[in-house]
């Protein structure tokens, strides 16, 4: 089975690489790969060079840890161990299906009926997950700060042991959970790790509680250091030993201490693996359970789950086709999001805003909420049109159906834009209202007129900004369907990443260009009126700008009609 497992892994990897290399023959992937490689180079490798030259400047002397970080770093291993123990306990309290027990349909079809033991299947699954974990640990190494004084390779190796141990441990929890309700010795054995963890947690919690009562911390950092010191106390050290052994290589010096720490971490990994492999009699049942749960889910993994619930909006039998498209997209939103939960969220936000405003500037709540709402407004206006894809980018998957409908092409394009622009604008307006309301508390130096005028102007501009971006994204989907990920697709690879970067840059460039005429005319209006009505001039300026952008969007949807008619279903199918 070992050689067969290796064969599957090597073949899958080789074929994946071959497909990725083959698609570089297509210009869009080739250009995407160049853009992706350039991004990686300037983001990571340029950083390496900079850090290497900084080390050279220091004459290869180890970097000094700043004084403020010395205390937290001293307790970091204990804190890391404690975090691992909490995660280990959480796996029992909040059960999730272990990914090692998820077999693809092909694996189930070929491997399950084959004369292969459950243990061998588990080993195969562990082996198959290694590529992802190696990549993950390499990323941790790349992103790790150079101040720790250990090489990235050593951090990657230590991270890999933690990741593998965690993955196997979660599988063990899933298997053991199936036996918790058994009887006799099996039940006692299954409850053993749960009891041990509970005792260990109680011991550490007791130690932390005692120290906390003795010297209550002044701030969050002091609290963290206190918890770390408590976890470093002799009794806690004993129960945290396996967790400490796992994190220790991350904090050990090369070569002696590091190699000893690695040996300790490997011993923990070996123990966990042995525990899981010895308890494999529950494997088949656990795999069946996971498979059954997956099959009961109405959609594929990663896709949204829709629930039938009353939406309160019935499509009338007559009216414009655009409304029908908006209704369709609205149903999608309302089937994904619970209206009552949404309403509760809005009420909480409104209450928090009122409380923050009443409390005034002395309290940090107003500043925090204000900063959050400004960031939320900007996110909704500038990034949500890229993320919320309930438009042509999603419906291209249904192009075969859409093409049979007797609807004017430009009406289809317009219809696809209506609902996402409504929902994004509504979110942006809510956040903007909070920000404007709190502006009086946050920005006392800005006059009321300017605050209200600016808020109103941005509110008027929001639909224009959102619609303009959505139009650009939908135009890209119609004109270059192969460049746009459809629906919930998240294509992987350097080339796909490069494509996304190019699309993002092009979208923002087009957004600037499309706003330019409106901004110029709006600017003239503002300049002409501001002497007479002050900050309120922002409102008519925004109205003019929005009007111009609305006309542009209308013209763009008409111009995109022929593109929709020309769009070949096969181009979309190939892109998928």
């Amino acid at each position, binding site marked *: 089975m070992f050689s067969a497992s290796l064969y599957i892994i090597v073949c899958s990897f080789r074929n994946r690489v071959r497909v990725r290399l083959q698609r570089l023959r297509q210009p869009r992937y080739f250009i995407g790969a160049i853009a992706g490689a350039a991004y990686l180079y300037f983001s990571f490798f340029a950083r390496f060079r900079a850090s290497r030259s900084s080390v050279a400047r220091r004459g290869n002397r180890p970097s000094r840890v700043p004084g403020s970080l010395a205390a937290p770093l001293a307790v970091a291993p204990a804190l890391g161990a404690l975090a691992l123990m909490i995660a280990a306990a959480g796996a029992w309290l909040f059960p999730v299906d272990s990914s090692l027990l998820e077999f693809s349909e092909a694996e189930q079809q070929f491997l399950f009926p084959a004369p292969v033991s459950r243990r061998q299947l588990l080993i195969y699954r562990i082996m198959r997950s290694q590529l992802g974990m190696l990549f993950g640990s390499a990323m941790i190494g790349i992103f790790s700060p150079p101040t720790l004084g250990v090489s990235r390779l050593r951090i990657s190796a230590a991270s890999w042991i933690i990741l593998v141990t965690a993955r196997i441990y979660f599988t063990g929890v899933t298997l053991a959970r199936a036996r918790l309700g058994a009887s006799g010795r099996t039940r006692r054995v299954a409850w053993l790790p749960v009891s041990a963890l509970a005792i260990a947690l109680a011991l550490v919690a007791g130690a932390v509680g005692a120290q906390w009562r003795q010297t209550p911390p002044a701030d969050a950092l002091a609290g963290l250091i206190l918890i770390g010191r408590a976890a470093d106390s002799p009794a806690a050290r004993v129960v945290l030993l396996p967790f400490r052994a796992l994190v220790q290589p991350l904090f050990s010096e090369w070569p002696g201490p590091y190699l000893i720490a690695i040996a300790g971490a490997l011993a923990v990994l070996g123990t966990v693996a042995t525990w899981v492999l010895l308890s494999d009699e529950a494997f088949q049942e656990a795999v069946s359970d996971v498979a059954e749960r997956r099959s009961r889910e109405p959609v594929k993994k990663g896709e949204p789950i*829709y629930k039938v619930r009353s939406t309160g909006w019935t*499509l009338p039998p007559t009216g414009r086709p655009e409304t*029908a498209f908006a209704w*369709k997209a609205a149903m999608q939103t309302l089937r*994904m999001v619970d209206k009552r939960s949404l309403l509760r969220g809005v009420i909480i936000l409104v209450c928090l805003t009122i409380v923050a405003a009443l409390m005034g500037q002395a309290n940090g709540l107003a500043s925090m909420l204000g900063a959050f709402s400004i960031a939320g407004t900007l996110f909704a206006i500038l990034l949500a049109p890229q993320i919320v894809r309930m438009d042509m980018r999603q419906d291209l998957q249904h192009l*075969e159906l859409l093409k*049979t409908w007797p609807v004017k092409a430009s009406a289809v394009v317009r219809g696809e834009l209506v609902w996402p622009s409504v929902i994004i604008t509504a979110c942006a307006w809510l956040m903007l209202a909070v920000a404007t309301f709190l502006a009086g508390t946050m920005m006392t130096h800005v006059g009321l007129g300017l605050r209200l005028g600016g808020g109103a102007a941005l509110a008027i501009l929001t639909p224009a900004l959102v619609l303009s971006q959505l139009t650009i994204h939908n135009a890209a989907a119609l004109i270059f369907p192969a460049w746009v990920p459809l629906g919930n697709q998240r294509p992987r690879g350097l080339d796909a990443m490069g494509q996304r970067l190019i699309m993002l840059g092009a979208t923002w460039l087009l957004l600037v260009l499309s706003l330019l005429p409106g901004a110029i005319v709006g600017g003239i209006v503002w300049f002409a009126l501001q002497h007479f009505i002050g900050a309120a001039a922002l409102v008519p300026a925004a109205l003019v700008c929005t009007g111009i952008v609305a006309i542009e969007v209308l013209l763009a949807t008409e111009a995109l009609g022929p593109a929709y008619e020309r769009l070949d279903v*096969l181009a979309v199918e190939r892109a998928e």
Partner: protein
Amino acid sequence: MALSVEHFGRTYATAAGSFTAVADLSFTVASGEIVGLIGPNGAGKTTTLRSLAGILRPTSGRVRIDDYDLIEHPLEAKRCLAFMPDEPHLFEYLTVMEHLRLVARLYGVTDVVDRAAALVDELQLTGKEQALPGELSRGMRQKVVIACGLVRNATTLLFDEPLTGLDPIGIRRMRSTIVARAKAGAAILLSSHLLHLVEEVCSRVIIMDRGQKVADGTFAELASRADLASAGSNLEQIFLRVTGHDAHP
């Protein structure tokens, strides 16, 4: 003629150049007629049906539906047409009833409630009106697609493997539904690999092979053709003879 196809052709661009899926195909389907479109895999049946439905653009030729040219008057032509594909494409977030409402709205059907109720009963979808596609079996999803096709007054119906995924009762009902629609005056083009179904419900058959029409006529006409006389009156035998597969067991 409800459906008229003249010198229709469709070519695909491939990495190696181009590939002709259908070449110079001409035929008509009159109101009340059920015509079977059969052929081996890769014969060009689905390409033909998808092009007639307005999904793929013909590379050459003309398609007229109720005298409306599909390219020149696509909206009018599509209003007269219903295409039931073999793969049920449904919106995962709309219920069965909402699918019917949406289609009715887009095709200008005002009495959707009565029509939908009748179709739900006819296609055995009772109790599934508020179900999402994810909660339905493959056969049920197929029935929803067919219900969406039948909810409007289409004069031309295109069926691509309409019985896929249906149980024996569903198959029987579907046969009756197809025949009833033809009796009501609809022109029906039905593509299927189930030759006994074609033999049972179709009054005429078109056989395609490698993108070309190789036979067109009633069963009697085909059986009396000189080159097919020895094949007998059985559609399977005729099909095998026409497509050159009769030598193989």
